[in-house]
């Protein structure tokens, strides 16, 4: 029995290791297009840019660790086609690889800008460790860096670059920072950290053209022109689902799966960010772009591959670290919720509550110790009086 996993990122690595833990016998093949062994991406927009070659958080195991687990890790191997009928893969090197079950863990790629001049070599994106090293090599004191996009990656890069002495401007089409995942009050705090550090933030400011000149790139925006030495495009990610689409597997902004990670084809699974997973609670398929989904959804996939059910149903959780501050986001942000703020000596909690006083979502700033009690509060779906939520002397663990 052979399971092939396409994609040797965090989700591919987790699927392989969890599967080995559940099944000592099966042959496990982990195919990666990059030449680096699997690694975790969170440090790429932070520690790697600040100069750490191999930060502790990168969590990159040596190739021998895979050998010891009898996981056949093949790097620099691009799969070009899935032949569902014959149950085999074709690679760019011309090899055919037969499988009994297949996991697609191809992740996502950075979205580019479709505007004139976007192919200039001074326009970069950040997704892989090679991207991070290339960006780091160019960040230096006095460099004029423009970041397109005030989402999580754009802001983390802005924070690192200003610490390295760059002159940093962030252009955002929308009205505030991290609008997709936090309430307005949190955006305002994050924006204040950036402005205090010297970052220029421009909102309502779409980038419409890039005019390459020998000495600079001129960026045409909704509010006039900006000159830059380097443009980092951080406007979201696109799932790498083309192999599945071409094979006839159901896709729609991601590979559609059930809660166990199974696709429309019974022997094919999708793991991590490429999957758009059925969420019973939400009553729809959801695609997550988080460390959490790459780390924990493979538990469902590895179990399903062994005939067991462990559906993926974790409360969404992600974080960002900027200027030594830690922001954690639990649940799914919604403008339909009312947002309440609790402050306790610089440690903050924002609760997103519905009209029945149930907490559905929360944001923690420098307050990670409350994440676990909050998860329990959200899972319980119990109304909690707002004066208790707002009172810092009431420990959250008493409210679970």
């Amino acid at each position: 029995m052979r399971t092939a996993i396409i994609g040797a990122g965090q989700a591919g690595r987790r699927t392989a290791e969890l599967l080995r833990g559940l099944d000592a016998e099966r042959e496990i093949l982990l195919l990666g297009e990059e030449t680096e062994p699997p690694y975790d991406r969170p440090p790429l927009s932070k520690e790697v840019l600040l100069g750490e070659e191999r930060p502790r958080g990168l969590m990159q195991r040596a190739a021998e660790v895979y050998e010891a687990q009898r996981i056949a890790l093949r790097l620099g191997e691009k799969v070009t086609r899935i032949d569902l009928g014959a149950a085999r893969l074709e690679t760019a090197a011309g090899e055919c690889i037969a499988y009994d079950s297949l996991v697609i863990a191809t992740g996502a790629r950075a979205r580019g800008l479709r505007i004139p001049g976007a192919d200039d070599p001074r326009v970069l994106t950040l997704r892989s460790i090679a991207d991070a090293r290339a960006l780091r090599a160019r960040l230096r004191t006095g460099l004029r860096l423009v970041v397109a996009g005030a989402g999580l990656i754009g802001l983390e890069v802005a924070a690192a670059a200003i610490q390295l002495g760059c002159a940093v401007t962030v252009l955002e089409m929308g009205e505030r920072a991290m609008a997709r995942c936090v309430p307005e009050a949190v955006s305002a705090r994050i924006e204040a950290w950036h402005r205090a550090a010297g970052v220029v933030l421009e909102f309502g400011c779409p980038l419409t053209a890039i005019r390459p000149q020998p000495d600079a790139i001129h960026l045409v925006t909704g509010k006039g022109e900006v000159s830059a030495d380097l443009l980092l495009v951080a406007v979201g990610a696109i799932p790498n689902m083309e192999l599945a689409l071409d094979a006839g597997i159901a896709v729609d902004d991601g590979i559609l799966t059930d809660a166990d990670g199974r696709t429309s084809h019974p022997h094919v699974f999708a793991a991590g960010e490429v999957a758009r997973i059925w969420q019973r609670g939400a009553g729809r398929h959801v695609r997550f772009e988080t460390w959490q989904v790459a780390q924990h959804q493979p538990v469902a996939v590895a179990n399903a591959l062994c005939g067991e059910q462990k559906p993926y149903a974790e409360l969404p959780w992600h974080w960002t670290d900027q200027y030594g501050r830690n922001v954690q986001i639990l649940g799914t942000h919604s403008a339909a919720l009312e947002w309440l703020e609790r402050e306790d000596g610089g440690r903050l909690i924002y609760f997103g509550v519905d009209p029945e006083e149930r907490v559905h979502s929360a944001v923690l700033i420098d307050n990670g110790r409350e994440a676990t009690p909050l998860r329990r509060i959200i899972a319980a779906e119990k109304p909690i009086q707002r004066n208790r939520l707002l009172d810092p002397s009431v420990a959250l663990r008493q409210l679970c």
Partner: protein
Amino acid sequence: MAWHDVAPEGEFEMDVPKVVQVGEDRVAVFRLADGFYAISDVCTHEYALLSDGFCEEGKIECPLHQACFDIRSGKALDEPAEVDLAIYPTRIDGGVVQFQL
């Protein structure tokens, strides 16, 4: 190696650590149901103080990225941490909790 004072036994609350700095080492000392335990206060994943984390049932969770450690053994229980914490012997001397480093 020496024994270092932390605080009188009676000043410890359950699951609320006390922190002592010894040179470059930060040590967090916990009262658990069966006694006192001392661990390195710094997460082995990225830099974060475990004493700022959530403690329950003999486990401490890193406040940054939720890696979990067993306080009694120092063992890293889940990713993102993979390296165990240093642990230190404890004793009570004249009513004062001490650890050895």
